[in-house]
């Protein structure tokens, strides 16, 4: 390292210094400061419209925990996250395995097709599905021959949004799992086959454990993303019918930009931050418990 340093002229305005200071500045302004403002603000009665900013301790947080709507939103969010991740992984892994097997041809075509919904803009796609679910003229009722009002019936509303999200995102899991499969060391399989293992056993004891890092990857990115679901709810049900499809992001937006309770909304945001952190941590823990890293 010192060789390099002596070769350079020590300038104040070296590329390195400018870049580093720029980065530090950017992150302070756009991340550190906002988080601090939000954090401090969550302990205040903060209404920007009325210009109020009075300290009220943990009152906001207590209100959050006493708010029935918060709990129902949270439970919706958690259910949504869990179910969508589950299906994303199952379908993604399943399709990836099928594609991986040597008998399939045109792999790139299939892969490209499955990934297409992932790149489509969420707002636009949410609209398409709203119309697909329309009881009179929607595609879903046409194909299934039913007359259900999917998005307005409380039993099917959240589920319908979940289906749409799974449709949109499973391709991502397919691509990742496929990549993971391709990178698995072949010698493991050779060794196992020599030992007489085949089919299901191979899958269960070698493939699955080796795919663990990839699965963890998908799970964690999904957790972070789905716990903040907002657009689909906004476009497809607006939290309805009643408040049965409220999710926490929707609640936060409502509190912040309709009722101008910035402090209260910040409190909810921080709680969600912690939830995301906790779930991520739990995922790590679960995965490292069961066998840890790939074996040689």
């Amino acid at each position: 390292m010192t060789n390099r340093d002596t070769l350079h002229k020590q300038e104040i305005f070296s590329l390195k210094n400018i870049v580093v200071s720029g980065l530090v500045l950017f992150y302070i302004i756009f991340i550190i400061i906002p988080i601090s403002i939000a954090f401090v603000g969550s302990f205040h009665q903060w209404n920007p419209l009325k210009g109020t900013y009075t300290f009220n301790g943990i009152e906001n947080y207590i209100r959050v925990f006493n708010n029935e709507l918060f709990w129902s939103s949270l439970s919706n969010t958690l259910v949504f996250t869990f179910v969508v991740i589950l299906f994303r992984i199952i379908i993604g892994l399943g399709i990836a395995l099928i594609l991986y097997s040597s008998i399939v041809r045109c792999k790139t075509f299939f892969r490209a097709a499955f990934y297409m919904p992932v790149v489509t803009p969420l707002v636009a796609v949410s609209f398409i599905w709203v119309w697909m679910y329309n009881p009179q003229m929607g595609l879903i009722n046409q194909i299934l021959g039913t007359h259900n009002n999917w998005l307005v019936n409380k039993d099917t509303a959240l589920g319908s949004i979940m289906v749409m999200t799974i449709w949109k995102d499973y391709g991502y899991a397919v691509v990742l799992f496929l990549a993971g499969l391709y990178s698995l060391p072949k010698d493991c399989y050779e060794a196992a086959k020599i030992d007489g293992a085949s089919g299901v056993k191979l899958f269960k004891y070698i493939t699955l454990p080796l795919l663990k890092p990839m699965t963890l990857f998908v799970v964690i990115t999904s957790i972070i993303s789905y716990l903040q679901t907002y657009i689909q709810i906004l476009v497809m049900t607006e939290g309805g019918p009643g408040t049965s499809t409220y999710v926490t992001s929707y609640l936060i937006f409502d509190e912040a930009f309709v009722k101008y309770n910035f402090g209260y909304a910040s409190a909810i945001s921080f709680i969600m931050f912690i939830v995301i952190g906790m779930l991520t941590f739990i995922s790590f823990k679960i995965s490292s418990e069961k066998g840890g890293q790939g074996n040689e």
Partner: protein
Amino acid sequence: MSKNIKLWIVHCILVIFVIITILPLVWMLSSSFKMNSEITSITPTFIPKTFTFKNYLNVQKNFNFLRYFANSLFITVVITGIVIYTSTISGFVFAKYEFRGKNILFSIILGTMMIPWCVTIIPRYSMVLAVDGLDTYLAVIIPAAVSGFGIFMMKQSIVTIPEEMLEAARIDGASEWFIFHKIILPLSQNAISSIAIFQFLWSWEDYLWPYLIFSSEEKQVLAVGLKNFNGRYGTDYGGLFAATTISIIPVIIVYLIFQKRFIDGIAASSVKG
């Protein structure tokens, strides 16, 4: 024989999934060419009975869609360009230099990607209000100028550039800036393409922040415009389908052209990570 049956079944499953995946998009496309009366009739059709372009013409006439499209394109391209530059130069610094606090800073940058948008969006909005930055392009572009993901990707890529090349250039008297612009940038084209496509897609579909910032129609982006269109003309289904198609098709076209490289890029970055 069982192998043939297996082949057949397996391909069937895949084809079914392809159909399920593509069907909504095809339905949207086909409906955008139907007359409103056909779309909403009690007895629906799939392929338009009477093919019409009127929906697309109306969309432009009523709602100046090209303006939204141009705005989205402008903002997306600018942000993507800036992100490419900042990511590459930051990646360069992290890959090839040492400085105090380097690891801490890098971890912070990575860690910030986990922060939910709801935590930062309220304070950022207040900050924009305070500097009277509402309804400006800058308020949308600047906060997006640095991407942790981009920095990470570029670092991974630049690390593989042999140190000897840089040393040779330095011995020849090249400045760091020269090294960056003439050596690093050209050699990182693959990683740059990956980031570019990602950032492009992400900026293109961003809704919440542009929604809060822009009030005038001339500056609004496509994602928000589409939602407004649905609000105001919520009954002109033909127009809605046309508008949605306009929002999606360009993305799909870009995707289809670059998909192999794009998908490989994601796969690579995640296999590693």
